[in-house]
Structure formats: structure tokens, C-alpha cells
């Protein structure tokens, strides 16, 4: 029996790891969930059935020593510099986000922007326009800066507060997720684990976690990656030694693999006021970071669909992103269009039913593509120039596209997209047509083998 400490910023971020934690508990291990949010002690319902072995504790949120305020500077600079490295040349939106997060965190919220004036032309140089000029240092100069801040990070000792926390908890293994956020202080937990010789690991949280967020500034003993692609990202983008990466698959989807539709297609269509005899197209919205004000784009898309001779009569279900659901509060769906119901930001809505009863799924760039693929639904996207920052400028978007070995069918224009949709409705692909992709991305250990089992095995093995 081992003591497993799982550090997350809040209990809500446990989603995706519940199966793994329950499995560990069922195997007799003690699981302590450490959050930095005071009072955040209410175990999610599924885990509360194992409350004899799973419990919550509060971890320090930041260092208590002289590095308390400055550490974020070391890490924030590196987070920004990574987006000036080869491979991220076009990742303007990610670079901007890294900068703004750094400015805000480093100033404790006092600063929200930086600005200067160009001497020669007098234009205002603001935020990334300003910081991006660092490119003028050349790759050698940028490398020198990166080396400076990395070397400093290596020599910053662990913090007594985090050391004391781990000493009290006495875990056999420390899991930290997502570890790529600037403000979480999670890197310090990994530092302390190393000091105390406690094995540590990062179970990767999402498909884009290693390529769109911050750096893993403190490399744990193990990275539990979803697939080969993520393993490569860990090595190439974060400098993780190959032997520290274990591929477990994506436990986040195990529940979905097991999920069954809550109702029949007829009942679903009736509930949403759609004609069950007509094909249903699902439009799954992306996060606000990928597509702000997506309703405008969705409106254009609906209009285009309606004008198409073969698609015009289709039912349409729009599934808002749970964290942007409020932006749809005043939306009045036109005829034969329904809005999927979402109760709160952590509600998955009726994602399974929406996808299951649809004939094709459309989205700009969202993790729900994977759920669609699990259900064998053909998946489409439109390369929208106004959302290039959340699509083409991210790394993971590309490797999900069919022409780059993925399963999402991209279209450079709405016209092409509509023809693709019409083709999919006219000749529906077989139910297993996406299996190899699902296996490659989510369950490299075998389609029938839940990733949460493999992750639980890997955690046990690390705990010794």
C-alpha cells in the first residue's frame, strides 16, 4: 500500500483522473488530493464513494522564502522565451498569452500590459509587439537568456514550506498536474519532492498541455504522456530525458469510452425540437482562447449550411463550450437549430448524446474532437483566418488534421467544407473508421485497455 499525493490547483481539475484515482484506491492505496484553494475540500461525487481512501488536503500555494515573489520572474521569462524558439514562429496568440500571464503574475495583478513608443515612427509598441522584438537578439542571444534563467532555476533550492508540507504528508509518490501553469507553484512541489527523494510525476492533462501552455520548468521523475506525439513534445519542447517519459494513454476519455447515450435518437431529437428523420450536424464550440465570440462565426456557418441544397434541411445542435456558456445566454436559435444544455462550467453538457446522435461533427479546435472520434463520427473543421491564433498557430491542431496524419478533415473555405459535409452524409464512413486514430492518440496500449489502468500501474510502479 502506498501513499499517493496528487496536487491539482483545484478539485475541479481532477476531472479526467477520477477513474485512475478510484482504481488506485480500490487497489488499497491511500490517495491524498492536494489543492491550493482554501476550503476546496468537497470530493467530486464519484470519488466520494471512496472517501475511506481518498481525501483532500491543502497545499501551500507559493513559496515562503526570499523567492516568494521573484520565482515567477525566472519561470515567466522562460515561458515567454520558449515561444521565440524554432517551431513556435507563428504561435503569436500563445506567445501573447504567455507574456500577459507573466506580466500579470509577476506584478501580482498590478500590471496588465507593457508599452513603449518606437523612436523612429512614434507608434505605440504594446505587449507582444514590444516583447517580440527580443527576436533581434538572434537565436544565440535568446539561447543565452534561456540558459541564464534555466541555470538559475536549477540552483534555486526547494522551499521550506513545500518541504514541510511533503514531510507532513509523507507520500510515496507525488503527482502534479498540470505543472505547466505559471502561478500554481507546482514546480516548487516537484523541487521539494526531489529534495526529499520522493518520486514525482506529471500526468499530462490535455492534448495541447505540452505545446500551448508554459514550460515544465522543474522536470519530475516521470511524465505520463498520452501518446508518442506527446512523448516527443516532452522531450523536444521541455527537455525531458527520453527515459523519464511513459506512455499511458489518455485516462481523461475512459469514462466516455464506457458511456452510453442517455436516450434514443428519437427522444434526443424530440427533446431538442429537431426532426429525427433528418441528419443532425453537431457544431461543438471551442474554448474562448481558441475562438472568442464564436457565435458570430457559428451564425455564418449555419447560414451557409442552410443555403446548401443537400444540407439545408439538416438539424443542427450547437454545443457551447462549458466555460463560455454564458456568451450563449441571449442566443435565439433559428428554426431547426438547437442549443445543447449546459448547467455549469464543469458540466460536460449532453456531449455524449449530442455527438452520438449526430451524423457529423464540426468544430474549430477542441478536445471534443476526440470524443467524436471515439464514437466514430466524421469530424470537420474550417480554417478560419480570424481564428488562426487558436487553430493554425497551435502545434497540436496540425497533427490532428487528416492531411497530417490525423482524423479531422480541414477545409480552407466554407464552400469546400460544405461539400465535405455533404459527402459524409451521402456516404457515411463505417463505424470503425477512426479506430486507429483513437488508439494512436488516446489508447496506444490497445483500444480495449483503459488508460486509467495503465496510468494507475505506472503510478504504482513509480511509488515502488
Amino acid at each position: 500500500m502506498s501513499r499517493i499525493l496528487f496536487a491539482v490547483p483545484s478539485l475541479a481539475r481532477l476531472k479526467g483522473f477520477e477513474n485512475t484515482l478510484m482504481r488506485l484506491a480500490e487497489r488499497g492505496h491511500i490517495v491524498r488530493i492536494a489543492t491550493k484553494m482554501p476550503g476546496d475540500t468537497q470530493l467530486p461525487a464519484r470519488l466520494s464513494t471512496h472517501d475511506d481512501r481518498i481525501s483532500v488536503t491543502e497545499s501551500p500555494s507559493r513559496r515562503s522564502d526570499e523567492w516568494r515573489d521573484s520565482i515567477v520572474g525566472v519561470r515567466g521569462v522562460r515561458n515567454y522565451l520558449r515561444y521565440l524558439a524554432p517551431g513556435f514562429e507563428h504561435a503569436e496568440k500563445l506567445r501573447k498569452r504567455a507574456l500577459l500571464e507573466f506580466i500579470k503574475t509577476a506584478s501580482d495583478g498590478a500590471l496588465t500590459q507593457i508599452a513603449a513608443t518606437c523612436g523612429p515612427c512614434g507608434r505605440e509598441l504594446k505587449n507582444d509587439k514590444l516583447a517580440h522584438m527580443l527576436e533581434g537578439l538572434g537565436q544565440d542571444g535568446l539561447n543565452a537568456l534561456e540558459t541564464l534563467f534555466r541555470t538559475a532555476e536549477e540552483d534555486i533550492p526547494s522551499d521550506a514550506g513545500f518541504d514541510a508540507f511533503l514531510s507532513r504528508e509523507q507520500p510515496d509518490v507525488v503527482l502534479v498536474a498540470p505543472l505547466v501553469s505559471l502561478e500554481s507553484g507546482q514546480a516548487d512541489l516537484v523541487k521539494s519532492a526531489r529534495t526529499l527523494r520522493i518520486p514525482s510525476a506529471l500526468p499530462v492533462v490535455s492534448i495541447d498541455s505540452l505545446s500551448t501552455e508554459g514550460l515544465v520548468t522543474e522536470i519530475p521523475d516521470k511524465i505520463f504522456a498520452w501518446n508518442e506525439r506527446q512523448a516527443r513534445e516532452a522531450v523536444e519542447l521541455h527537455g525531458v530525458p527520453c527515459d523519464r517519459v511513459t506512455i499511458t494513454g489518455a485516462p481523461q476519455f475512459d469514462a466516455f469510452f464506457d458511456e452510453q447515450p442517455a436516450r434514443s435518437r428519437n427522444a434526443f431529437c424530440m427533446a431538442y425540437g429537431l426532426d429525427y428523420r433528418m441528419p443532425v450536424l453537431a457544431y461543438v464550440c471551442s474554448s474562448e482562447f481558441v475562438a472568442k465570440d464564436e457565435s458570430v462565426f457559428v451564425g455564418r456557418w449555419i447560414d451557409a449550411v442552410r443555403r446548401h441544397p443537400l444540407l439545408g434541411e439538416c438539424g443542427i445542435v450547437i454545443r457551447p463550450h462549458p466555460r463560455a456558456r454564458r456568451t450563449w445566454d441571449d442566443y435565439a436559435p433559428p428554426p431547426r437549430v438547437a442549443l445543447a444544455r449546459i448547467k455549469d462550467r464543469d458540466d460536460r453538457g449532453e456531449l455524449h448524446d449530442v455527438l452520438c446522435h449526430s451524423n457529423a461533427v464540426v468544430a474549430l479546435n477542441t478536445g471534443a474532437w476526440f470524443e467524436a472520434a471515439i464514437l466514430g463520427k466524421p469530424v470537420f473543421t474550417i480554417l478560419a483566418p480570424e481564428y488562426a491564433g487558436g487553430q493554425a498557430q497551435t502545434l497540436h491542431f496540425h497533427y490532428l488534421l487528416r492531411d497530417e496524419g490525423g482524423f479531422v478533415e480541414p477545409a480552407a473555405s466554407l464552400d469546400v467544407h460544405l461539400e465535405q459535409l455533404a459527402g459524409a452524409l451521402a456516404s457515411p464512413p463505417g463505424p470503425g473508421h477512426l479506430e486507429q486514430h483513437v488508439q494512436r492518440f488516446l489508447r496506444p496500449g490497445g483500444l480495449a485497455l483503459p488508460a486509467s489502468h495503465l496510468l494507475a500501474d505506472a503510478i504504482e510502479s513509480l511509488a515502488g
Partner: protein
Amino acid sequence: MVRRVHARRIAYVKLLFILAQTSYIRHFESVVLALADRGHELRLAVSREGHTSLAPALAAHPRISQTICPTGRADKWREPVETLRSLADYVHYLEPAFLPAEKLRTRAFRNLAKSLTGHEKTHIKLRCPYCKERIADDQAGKLLMSLGDQGLQGLRRLLQAMEASVRPDSAHEQFLRAERADAVLVTPLINHGSGQSEWVKAARVLKTPVGFPVFSWDNLTTKGLIHEQPDRLFVWNEIQRKEAADYHGIPREHVVVTGAPRFDDFFSMAPSTGRATFCRGLGLDSARTIITYLCSSEFVSGREVEFVRQWIDEVRQDPALEGSSIVIRPHPRSLEQWRDFNPSRGSRVAVTTSGVMNADQLLYDSLYHSAAIVGLNTSAQIEAGILGKPVYTMLAPGFERGQQGTLHFQYLLAQNGGFVEVADSFDSHRSQLAQAVAGRVDRTRVDRFIESFIRPSGLHLPATPIMADAIEALAS
């Protein structure tokens, strides 16, 4: 040469004096000799690159020796630490007090550029994303000011914290262990991106007292930061004590005001010849008054020859000065630009060239026989003050960055309590010089300033034994 045998009985100690180059000992030669004469062992440690032979008086002393010491760290910090310190040095020049110091800031930025590019470039050119124009050097560096006061403070704190987390280098530690010195002295310590901080770090770990004798009057305001605080600073005067606190965060109690021993020899010099012989040697008429022009370093004034020609022409326009002889003293390190300067016979202009940096007899003679001294911004103005001479400067167009753009320039000005009269035009400059050659000079003010600036314990008390005492105290 000031050499005193100390009468007090103290235990003899071994003192390790670490220098970036052997030549840096010239400002402390009298102190080293005094300490050796008192019976202490003096070991001068210089990097292989900076190593040259010792001055004869030092080399001949049985208790003074020179050795080679490591330079640069041997570990993973070897290159990053230079970047760290160069960056901190540059950010230091973004402090409000240094905002007018564009030239100093540019120098700091170029040093940073060197460090960032593996010593391949001294310029960094950024491009405006809108107009695509180049934004280079200090203009590029000043973009950091977009962080605002709070952001810059945060950056300074971050860089300090990073420096503090850098552990001492084992090669430096080993060297100090092997030397077994009772105290370590390090100078100049604050050259941009200086690796000499490693000695302070290592000495502190070994609990060996470490002192920093400040090399010159401008060092605490024109160079880099003190990245690692020594146990003691030995400074010239109260101004430097304040600079140490204000710009380098050194607590007052860690600073000892000793005066400037480098001038002790100059104080005890005498003219080597009579006026007639001096003038004859330079082809000048001994009956005429002499105005000496002291050239500044290339950093302050770049190429000064053309300005000096203009200055001569301007001075000659005043009937009271027209007949005066003029002696030009090129800066000892900028002799090359004067190679083709050949004053014509009868121009009453002479050039005295000397490569001597300290206690230069030719300088002494020139100053001694002069009625007035002129210079843009140079240490030799202080030597002129030692001789009680009236000293003048002009705010010369084109040289602002080497004059008003430095903090130390202000200290010498009469308007700030100093002794150098400043003029903002040739008209007023001529008028000031005319007063001087007419003998209307207030020597008391000059003496008062010289005392406060280089011999704060008393104009007639040499700084050498005071600094020697302070070093002994550090070692005991």
C-alpha cells in the same frame, strides 16, 4: 614615494590582493609597500591574461609577490553568470539618477550585447514591427522601461535573487584555500559583468574577510554594480560612501573612508626643473603665463584634437589670453590622435606627452608652472587641485555625454561645492581664464575641496597609512 614603517605591534598577516590586471595596483602601490614594510606578506594575484611584471619597487620587496589566479568560473555558470551580471549592470543604469547617463548606459548595453552573443557582437539591433526601422543599443535597452518603476524594481530584485543563488565557484575557493590569506582585497571589482565577484563569494564562504578598495573617483557611478557585497569598502570620501549606499546597497558601516592613496606620491612631489628650464624644453617663453589643457580619456571625449584646436583659437581671441602660452597634455592612453598635431613655431603652443598614469612628473611640472588649467572631465583636474591651481571646464557641444552625462563630473564643479569653474560658452570661459591669469584665484576653496575629496582626514595626512590601517583592521 610614501613609505612608512608602522610602529604599532600587530601580528603579521598575509594579504591577498586580487587584481583584474597587474596595472591596477598602481593606485594602491604605496599602500602595498606600506603594508609590506610593516611586516605583512602581500600576494598580488592576477589572471594569466592580465599578468604583467610588477613595478620595480614592488618587485624588489621581499614580502611582495605576484601569482596567477583563476579567471572565470569552471562550472555551468561560467557563461550565464556573465550575462546575469551584465544584465543587472544595464538595468542599474535605468535607475532615475542615471537616466541622463546615456553614454554610460550605452556602454553597459554593449557589454550586455557582448555577453549575449558570446562576445561576437557589441551591438544589438531590434526592429520596430511597424516601421521596420532599427532600434539599437541603448534605445533598444531602454524599452525595458516599459516595465515601469514597479516592474523594473521587480526585475532588479529578481536579478539580485538570482545572483544570491549562484554558489561560489570551486576553482576560486580552492585558490583561496591554497593561499591561506588572512584577508582578501579585490579591485576594480565592478567592471561590467565582472567575474571578480567570484572572489568575494568564495572569500565569504571561507569566512576570509574581503575588502574592496575602490579604484578611482568615478568607479561607483560609471562602471557596473557591486554584485556581491564585500565586508569592507575602502573609499575616497563621503561622496563615495553615499554612492556605495545609494547605488550599490552597501550599508554605511561597511564603508571606510580612507582618502585616495594614489595621490600621496603626487602630494610629495616637487617640480623637477625651474620655470625657465621647463619653458625652454617646450620652446615656450618663460615670461608668459601658461594655460595647461588636460585632455580626457577617449571614453569621455572621443577624439579631442579638433576641439582643442578650436579652443586654442577661441582663447586667442581674448586680449588678456592672446599672449599666454598653452601646454596640451594628451591623455596618457590616447596619445595616438596627437601624432600629427604639430604646433607651428611661434604659436606658443606645446604638447607634453607621457604614458605615465600615476604621479607623472611631467604633469606635475606642467601644472606647477601654469596659471590656469582646463579640461573637459579628467582625473588630472584633481592633480591640478592638489597644486592649488584654478581649474576650468566648458560645457562643450558634442561632449555632453562625457560631461553632464556622468555623475562624477558634477562633483568637481564649483557650483556643486567643488573647485572646477564651469562655463557654458567660450565668452564666459575666456573671461574666467582671464581672471586666473591675472592671479585672481581663491586657493582656499580649492584646498578645501581637495581635502574633502581625496584626504578627508586632513589635507596634510596621507591616505596611504589610513588605508593600510583599515586593511590591517580587516585582516585582524
